[in-house]
């Protein structure tokens, strides 16, 4: 097999593995491909307040449920003096705080992180008995019958019935009937209660679903009331106010099926309030958390299995291949000269820490000053190792000078000079200086420009959220990068710069 055939097979295998694993994680495990798709994360907070009189206290708070669209991770907080645990009674999960003898105003917090996508909705069992028939007193009975008769005529099944009833109760068409049943002023809560009663009257098992919509930051959330009903085969969610069917994507149900919301034994004046905070969580963290929750085999043996601090290191390390790709493209396809093959990657990584303009300015100042001093060292005819050691010390001194002078002048950016790897800078100065002697200053400018341009492009890619998200969440894409580099490695065509270099030869042939 020739080298070319081997290469082609290798490239094909790399592409298949790399793209295949990526596709699997995206399509099957539900990893988002772009950081934007699920970067919204809410912290919802419930605050319970009550007054204690020195008796043993047991405060219970119902916990929010997951839906198909929302993934909920509870984070209870135990204040000083309280014990905290989560208790499950039947299908109801509760946060429980207990204390022996608290006094005065008490404040308990419960927090939950809510992620978009990937939730596991609790499966309610089918109802065992038909609901108990509610009793309507005259004159409500006649009004209720009228509503039910109209809804029955305009629907085909239980869900349709509920939607039609909701339309009558929330719309203006049946206003007189509604007012007979609920009075002049009716709230969403009372209308929902009535809707449930009407459904039960027509033998449809149904219960209320109380919760709130996750929107932007909100200090106090208003509770909304949804209805969950049994349509004979499965549970259906109906939003009566909107007259729509199905669980809304951003609705977080907190209380359902007759669960209590909160209960405080041993305290008085208990209240609960809710707040939501939208978090700008980094997409990388999101991928980590998603990974840990879904727990597929591919993730157990991936970067997500590592401790978080090591993951952070890898988040940076995984960007290096991107830098390498940029260097390969710039050198072999564009034909740019760089000083030191992979020095631009290191410089790009420094730029990530310092910001581009600060980094560029610092690099030019340090290397420029270093070159001047190194120029003097040349005239001393020093041996190589002592010479580089001398340059290293010069660089150290320059760092210190820059930091101190910059700080005194109020230019705090100068402090970030320490991010530049000293040895690399010393070697760069040494190489550039040799280049200046052997080939002249022009070549130094050409190579510096090439290096900085390459570093800048690598930097722009490295700070790109999409790129850093993909490299971290889909490390198998490295194989694709490898495949591309292998292909470029066999590229024998012209470089962009050669189109200029050999241009006179082409035009003469015409």
């Amino acid at each position, binding site marked *: 097999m020739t080298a070319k055939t081997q290469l082609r097979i290798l490239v094909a295998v790399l592409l298949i593995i790399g793209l295949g694993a990526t596709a699997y994680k995206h399509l099957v495990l539900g990893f988002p491909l772009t950081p934007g798709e699920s970067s919204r994360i809410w912290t919802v907070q419930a605050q319970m307040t009550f007054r204690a009189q020195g008796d043993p206290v047991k405060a219970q708070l119902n916990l929010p449920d997951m839906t198909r669209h929302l993934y909920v991770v509870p984070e209870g907080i135990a204040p000083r003096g309280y014990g905290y645990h989560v208790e499950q009674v039947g299908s109801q999960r509760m946060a429980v705080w207990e204390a022996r003898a608290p006094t005065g105003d008490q404040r308990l917090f419960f927090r939950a992180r809510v992620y978009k996508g990937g939730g596991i909705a609790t499966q309610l069992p089918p109802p065992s008995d038909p609901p108990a028939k509610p009793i309507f007193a005259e004159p409500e009975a006649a009004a209720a019958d009228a509503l039910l008769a109209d809804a029955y005529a305009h629907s085909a099944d239980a869900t349709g019935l509920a939607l039609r009833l909701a339309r009558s109760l929330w719309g203006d068409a049946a206003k007189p009937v509604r007012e007979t049943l609920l009075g002049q002023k009716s709230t969403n809560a009372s209308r929902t209660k009535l809707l449930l009663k009407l459904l039960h009257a027509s033998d449809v098992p149904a219960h209320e679903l109380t919760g709130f919509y996750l929107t932007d930051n909100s200090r106090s959330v208003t509770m909304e009331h949804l209805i969950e009903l049994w349509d004979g085969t499965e549970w259906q969610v109906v939003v009566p106010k909107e007259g729509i069917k199905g669980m809304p994507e951003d609705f977080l149900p907190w209380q359902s099926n007759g669960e209590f919301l909160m209960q405080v034994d041993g305290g008085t004046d208990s209240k609960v309030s809710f707040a939501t905070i939208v978090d700008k969580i980094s997409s990388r963290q999101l991928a980590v958390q998603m990974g840990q929750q879904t727990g597929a085999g591919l993730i157990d043996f991936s970067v997500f299995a590592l401790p978080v601090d090591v993951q952070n290191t890898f988040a940076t390390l995984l960007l290096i291949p991107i830098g390498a790709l940029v260097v390969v493209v710039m050198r*072999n396809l564009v*034909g740019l000269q760089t000083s030191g093959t992979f020095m631009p990657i290191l410089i790009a990584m420094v730029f990530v820490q310092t910001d581009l303009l600060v980094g560029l300015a610092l690099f030019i100042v340090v290397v420029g000053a270093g070159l001047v001093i190194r120029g003097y060292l040349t005239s001393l*005819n020093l*041996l*190589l*190792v002592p010479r580089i050691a001398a340059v290293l010390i010069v660089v150290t001194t320059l760092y210190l000078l820059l930091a101190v002078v910059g700080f005194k002048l109020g230019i705090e950016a100068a402090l970030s000079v320490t991010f530049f790897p000293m040895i690399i800078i010393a070697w760069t100065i040494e190489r550039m200086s040799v280049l200046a002697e*052997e*080939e*002249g200053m*022009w*070549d130094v400018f050409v190579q510096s420009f090439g290096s900085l341009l390459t570093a800048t492009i690598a930097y722009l890619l490295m700070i790109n959220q999409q790129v850093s998200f993909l490299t971290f969440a889909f490390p198998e894409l490295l194989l694709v990068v490898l495949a591309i580099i292998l292909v470029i490695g*066999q*590229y*024998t*065509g*012209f*470089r962009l710069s*050669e*189109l*200029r*270099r*050999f*241009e*006179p*030869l*082409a*035009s*003469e*042939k015409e």
Partner: protein
Amino acid sequence: MLRLASPLRLKRAGIVGMNRRNVELIAENNPRSMFPLVDDKLKTKALLRKDGIAAPRLLGVVRQTGQIKELPAFLKAFPSFVMKPSQGSGGKGILVITGRDGDSYVKPSGKTVPFAEVARHVNNTLSGLFSLGGKPDAAMIEAMIDFDPVFDDYSFEGVPDIRVIVYKGFPMMAMTRLSTAQSDGKANLHQGAVGVGLDIATGLAMRAVQFNRPVHTHPDTGADLTSIAVPLWRDIVELAAQCYQSSQLGYLGVDVVLDRTQGPQVLELNARPGLAIQVANGRGMAPRVAAIEALLRTEGAPNTPTGRAQWSMDVLAKL
């Protein structure tokens, strides 16, 4: 204005680019193990002497600092000599001594230096001041070339050599590089040296370029560049062809100088010769490489250096 040629036109013109040179010419033809032989001038010298290829005579080698004190006595026999680092790069660390003035050594500029200066130079060479990557090196002492006056009017400083590119034993392209004031006496084309393409069949100048643009006279001396005619051309081409035998490098650059009495001498071999020669010749290498490959696939390919040189002179110049 930035003018770009389309890749297609360059390909049609037969130009070889850097990527293709690196993959198809160097990586496929030059075994890595042979590189040290050409990167170390002492090894090159031994190789060339073994095969009887003409090269400047090696007078002696200084390998250790301790040998420096024996130098004055040793050098007495040689009024003129050239001292070079064995693994030097870019022409650094070359000391030329043309004669003696009492105990002092005379440089080409007429300046005299004491022996201490020569000793210091040797010391620097040994400690790797001039070598690639600062490796400890050896100092070679070579006989001085008595340069043929053919290039006298054509160079700003120093004496130009003739670069012949040899592909699988067939000399396929040649040029000479003339330093200018602009190139600061260096023979590097992209720094402003003038490249003169030489007809591989005759050794006559074909065209001259500076900074990629055609020139007709030397920018410093004003000499007519198109009238360059290199004497002993057949000998030069055959000498270059011989070097393939010794080095086993399929893509080889041979640097030749002309001695007034000794004729062509191989100064250096290069395992990674550059592509500027195409610009100096106004021709691409690709058709010549293809012709040589086609010839090698036939039965009757010449297998002696003389035969290959002859074939190159007959056939390649027309491509």
